[in-house]
């Protein structure tokens, strides 16, 4: 029995009948919860791709009004502090080639560096910048351009999913001399923990369930989510990214809430193991170690970032160019004064709560980091209509 790519997509993406059945299940569990007295269920996701699927496929409008899907910290571009982009701009204007993911190319800084407030502006001013799809592509490009380019820095943004793509070439000595990594890697579970406690601290309606990130969990496994689930006494389901995956995960969460179960279950079984990808984790922790890292607009979260270990400092952009990381004592929130990204990222506010949303801040001219990446919550809502309006329209049409 062989499975093709098309068949896989057909099962989980283009299967209206399956989606409908799951939708009915969700309605049933919701009715049950309402009968039990829970008439508001808040489910938080921790992955920009889940938010993308949610909005792109209109998942919010398929759910009963009692169920609220909230986006948590799930976009590594959105939480990369301005300082790192400023350093990359500075280097690019000094003739060091900067490799950057397309997603972060327009990421705005809070202060301009030599007239540029993003790498795209730096490029217009003559900065050396190359958009790449991966660290591997940067390695290839750097090799092919050796001679013309002497030194280059890869702006190493990402969560656990991306960390192995840096760790494998570094560990296996595949990185040519002159190419350095500026690691801005961040870890998801510490941020999830931070966001969940922020909701409680601010006295907001508590989160009742978690949709855990499927691809992050491919690397770290389901186990770290089990810990968080038990700490907050709420269920977690590690979900895949097709629309039916997400619906099924929501149904599973509601069922667990009905049964008053905490802990983690995996919906994305076709790729996620409970203990994760051990070889990937080995690579990661052979090359990097955890440190207390800064998150844009938020500040420092313990053990939430990855830095290169001493034995790999030959590849370290901080060491080579004397770049200083932001410091806790002198940390200032690095957002435009009206930008609500910090709260959007933590699931405390929605993009529509920001006065700049789709007015001064648009995907073409982003003012805050959540409007830049394809998976930034503001950018997703701006492109596909969010949920607020769609919800209202659905209500007025009597679809609920």
């Amino acid at each position, binding site marked *: 029995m062989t499975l093709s*790519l098309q068949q896989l997509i057909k099962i989980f993406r283009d299967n209206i009948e399956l989606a409908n059945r799951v939708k009915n299940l969700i309605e049933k569990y919701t009715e049950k919860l309402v009968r039990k007295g829970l008439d508001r269920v808040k489910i938080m996701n921790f992955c920009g791709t889940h938010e993308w699927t949610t909005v792109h496929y209109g998942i919010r409008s398929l759910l009963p009004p009692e169920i609220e899907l909230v986006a948590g910290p799930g976009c590594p571009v959105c939480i990369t502090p301005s300082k790192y982009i400023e350093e990359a701009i500075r280097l690019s204007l000094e003739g060091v080639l900067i490799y950057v993911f397309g997603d972060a190319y327009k990421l705005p800084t809070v202060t301009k560096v030599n007239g540029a407030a993003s790498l795209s502006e730096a490029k217009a001013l003559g900065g050396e910048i190359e958009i790449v799809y991966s660290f591997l592509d940067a390695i290839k490009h750097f090799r092919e351009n050796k001679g013309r380019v002497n030194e280059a820095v890869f702006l190493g943004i990402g969560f656990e999913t991306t960390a192995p793509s840096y760790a494998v070439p570094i560990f296996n000595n595949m990185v040519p001399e002159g190419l350095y990594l500026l690691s801005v890697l961040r870890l998801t579970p510490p941020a999830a923990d931070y966001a969940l406690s922020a909701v409680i601290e601010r006295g907001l309606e508590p989160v009742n369930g978690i949709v855990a990130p499927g691809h992050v969990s491919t690397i770290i496994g389901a186990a770290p989510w089990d810990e968080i689930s038990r700490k907050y006494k709420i269920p977690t389901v590690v979900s895949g*990214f097709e629309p039916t995956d997400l619906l099924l995960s929501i149904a599973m969460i509601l069922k667990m809430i009905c049964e008053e179960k905490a802990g983690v279950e995996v919906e994305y079984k076709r790729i996620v193991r409970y203990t994760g990808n051990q070889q990937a984790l080995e690579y990661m922790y052979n090359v990097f170690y955890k440190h207390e890292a800064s998150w844009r607009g938020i500040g420092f979260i313990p053990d939430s970032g990855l830095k290169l270990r001493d034995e790999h400092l030959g590849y370290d952009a901080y060491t080579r160019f004397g770049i200083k990381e932001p410091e806790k004592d002198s940390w200032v929130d690095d957002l435009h004064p009206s930008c609500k990204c910090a709260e959007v990222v933590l699931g405390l506010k929605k993009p529509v709560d920001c006065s700049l949303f789709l007015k001064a801040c648009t995907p073409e001219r982003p003012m805050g980091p959540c409007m830049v990446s394809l998976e930034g919550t503001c950018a997703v809502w701006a492109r596909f209509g969010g949920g607020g309006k769609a919800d209202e329209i659905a209500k007025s049409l009597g679809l609920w």
Partner: protein
Amino acid sequence: MCWGVPAKVLETDGVMAKVDFGGSIKDVLVINTDIKPGDLVIVHAGTIIGKIEEEELDNTLKLYGDLLRDSLIEDGMDPDEAEKNVREWIRYLLGENRDG
């Protein structure tokens, strides 16, 4: 940014592999030593982050089946009848979507 794209492995060579993204062929990095030609994998940022296990796909459908069964029984359907209903559904899904 944690976007992952399914692909089929064509050949492997140490920590490198050639994969097919449904027509476009690309060189990617390999983390796991057990990845081999023919495997269906997920690629993120030029790296194979994991292998899609076909049996586990069946388990996902089973998850769905379990939920459906519970809800049918709750609706008052006889457990055997509910089981039959669920099996038929999964067969329909697999039959329609899979060879063999």
